[in-house]
């Protein structure tokens, strides 16, 4: 495993955020960024003096501001203020059925997802009414938003997950809406812990993480980053903290590896092995993955040998072998042998089984290498 790729990136981002925070809080950046930075510092236990107060018009900044550990404000009032705004936007869309009203509602919901996760994790309140039928109907055709809402429903509302959960994991890993990525990283991580689809959700988690990290890692050294990028980095840092990446930060390297193995496992190898097996095995038992043809052949061997032992008459069935055919050439024996028929057949079947197992191993290795044509 390349240490930097698998462990280093998230830490680099968290460290970047910690180092950049004082500059953001004192510098010429927008209020929302200052507030989210200050919240990040508060979450990691480093309270900073922040004189900026959020505008009452900006509900999300108000929520962020009051999620800080030292905040004395009960956010119930803010949650209901938020829900009023949401209701108003839904009503506006239903009344007008216009594109601008749809865009405004969609943008509001997309922004809300992240704040919904924060309020749920950092307080006892939930922002978005995820089961709101009207909302779900409006966004029926918005696949990505639907995926996120579905996945939130599974892990927050204990909605029963069905076979569809696997599809959700795949959809999460293919997410393209940049504004949903941080939320999806968090959701996929939590669903990996909560559901039996551990490997699927961990795969999504890592894939999204990698996607974000690849982009951000290249640019964090740029001294002129816009507020929008810094806000994204701060949001991601909060999410990484919530996923527990900060804990491994404080551990020695070996412990970090242990932590990753225990808590989140190493998904790529599991994923690839499983995929290769899936492709090459026609039947998989829940516990022992095995090819159905091999099972049948083994079963025949057992029956033949059983019959040979139990029924004495069958022991008299013999076959006289004068030569051994290998491909199209026969090799004559010095003298003919009377061999018992059933053990001979069993031995031949065993030879076929060994050959099949050898082929299976070869195919799996080929799959690993990247396809049968390699």
């Amino acid at each position, binding site marked *: 495993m390349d240490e930097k790729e698998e462990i280093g990136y998230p830490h680099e981002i968290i460290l970047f955020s910690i180092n950049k925070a004082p500059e953001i809080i004192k510098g010429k950046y927008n209020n929302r960024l200052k507030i989210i930075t200050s919240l990040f510092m508060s979450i990691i236990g480093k309270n900073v003096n922040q004189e900026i107060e959020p505008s009452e018009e900006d509900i999300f900044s108000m929520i962020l501001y009051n999620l800080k550990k030292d905040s004395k404000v009960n956010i119930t009032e803010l949650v209901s203020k938020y829900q009023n705004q949401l209701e108003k936007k839904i009503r*506006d869309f239903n009344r007008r059925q*216009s594109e601008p*009203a749809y865009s405004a509602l969609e*943008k509001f919901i997309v922004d809300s997802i992240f704040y919904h996760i924060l309020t749920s994790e950092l307080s006892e309140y939930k922002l978005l009414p995820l089961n709101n039928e009207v909302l779900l109907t409006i966004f029926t055709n918005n696949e990505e938003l639907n995926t996120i809402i579905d996945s939130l429903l599974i892990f927050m509302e204990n909605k029963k997950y069905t076979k569809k959960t696997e599809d959700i994991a795949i959809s999460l890993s293919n997410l393209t809406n940049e504004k949903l990525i941080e939320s999806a990283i968090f959701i996929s991580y939590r669903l990996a812990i909560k559901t039996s689809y551990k490997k699927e959700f961990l795969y999504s988690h890592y894939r999204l993480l990698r996607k974000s990290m690849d982009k951000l890692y*290249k640019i964090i050294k*740029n001294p002129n*980053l*816009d507020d929008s*990028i810094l806000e994204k980095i701060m949001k991601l840092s909060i999410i990484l903290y919530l996923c527990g990446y900060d804990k491994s930060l404080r551990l020695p390297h070996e412990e970090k590896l242990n932590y990753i193995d225990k808590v989140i496992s190493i998904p790529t190898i599991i994923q690839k092995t499983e995929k290769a097996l899936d492709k090459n095995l026609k039947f998989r038992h829940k516990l022992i993955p095995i090819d159905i043809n091999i099972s049948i052949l083994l079963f025949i061997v057992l029956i033949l040998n059983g019959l040979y032992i139990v029924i004495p008459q069958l022991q008299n069935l013999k076959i006289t072998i004068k030569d051994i055919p290998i491909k199209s050439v026969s090799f004559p024996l010095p003298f003919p042998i009377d061999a018992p028929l059933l053990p001979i057949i069993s031995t031949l079947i065993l030879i076929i089984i060994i050959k099949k197992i050898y082929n299976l191993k070869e195919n799996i290795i080929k799959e690993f290498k990247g396809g049968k044509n390699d």
Partner: protein
Amino acid sequence: MIEEYPTSMYITKLSTLKIPTRKDMKQAIWDNFEEIFYDNKKIELDNEYKKIIYKDEGQNVEIYYKVRDIPENSRYIITFFPYKSKRKQWTKEMCRNAVEKVLKFCDELGDTFKIEHEIGIFNYERIYFNISSSIDISDWNLIFYGGDVVEKLSIQELFEKDGYYGYILTKIPKNAKFYIFSNTYEDKERELRSILNFLQSFGEVCKISENKIIGPLNIAKDFAEKLHNRDKCVFIFIEKKERFDEPYKNLKIYYDTNNIPSQFINDNTIFEKLNYPGVRSNIILEIFTKIGLKPIDLRPPEDILDVNGFLCLSDLEITNKKLFGALFTYSREGTEEEEVQIYNDLKFEVTKDTIDLEDESINLLANKINLLIGRSINIDVIITKEWKYDKLKKLIDILKQNDIKINRVYYISMKTSRFVDKYLISGHNLNVHPYLILSNKVGFIRTSTNIRFYSDLSSIYIKLFWPKNEKLIVKDLNKILWLVKKRIYRIQEFYQLKIPEPVKIFRNINKMYIKDFESTLTIPYRLLI
């Protein structure tokens, strides 16, 4: 450091019982000037045209004066401004000289002067720009979208960069598709090599036919109609200026209404100016802004973001047609398409500075605005002519019923009470914009801080038209200044930018030929910059 800069504006408080009319006041001033300047050899008064001729160092400058009342504050203002005939082009030096002469004339007049009238005596006092009443835009942020990462620089940081045009050009996307048309240069590709090479560095100069990359003008429309994929396409028209006007006006409206970005380039610009980095930057920034891939944005200062956007309402001065326009622009960056609509079914009367819509047309206009904006929103409104208050109130009330809440209404004028000031010629910090708030409702702000043309010499007039019980404050001036400077795609003239973008867009529409249409004509905002 000089803190105060004299202007050519004077103000008086009206303490008399009776208030003279503008015409009376203007005459009284003239009569008094005849006495004041009786012996002054530098000053000649042209009685016929009511012009003042100021003679200094062998140069004469004609000066005209205007009188305006501010009734809600019982004040009269007089302003002096250099006169220029429309036919004559003034160089930067001529502009500067004219400003100096007007200020010298005001020096002769003194910081105070009395006007005697049969109603009473009016004491006029000269107004000074005080640097403590100014808006410094140095730390307003510019956002660059076109590079590998979204970057932010303050205005000061950008303009302090060595070769800032070069920096800007690195922030331009490289994915446009250029289609070139020209009658003059159809078969003279080699002559246009410099512009073709330049465009090539920002995308692909596409072939018009199998072996031609420049097509004749008459096939451009057909070509556009048959073009399957118009994504990131822009049509470039290159012509001699004298052959330009008619086809330009006809074609421009066709492409704009069909949502095809087009750019008209005068051949003289290519042959004589394309080597200037400022000209190159202007051309490419405008093209990409029209395509919808805006490379630079001026982010509004956070304290002005109390509304979601600006609605601008204006009549259109197009020959033989009584048209009315409405446009909406968002104050925050976003992906929403902004639109301009032109209406031919509103009934209204226009005088020089005022507009009066019929009652039924107010209802109709409200419906149209409702559809144009299409969502619940808080907005500011800009009007380019003064409205009757009750009509404006009615429009605001109807919009409010539709959840479109009007925060403030500003009347903006470029021609009202034009005056000059020493600030403009004193080598000051170009990012600092002085302003005057003369009353609860009326103010001026110097939006252009550098001289290039005659039009740069004056400040703009802003009147808070609504709500009645609110006062004009610095935040209002900040909003207007942001609307002016958001035309950053004219980077070369950034410090000469004077007119708010929405007003400028209506001025651009006034230059177009608009054929008959049914009720409403909609054009994307970005194509009209």
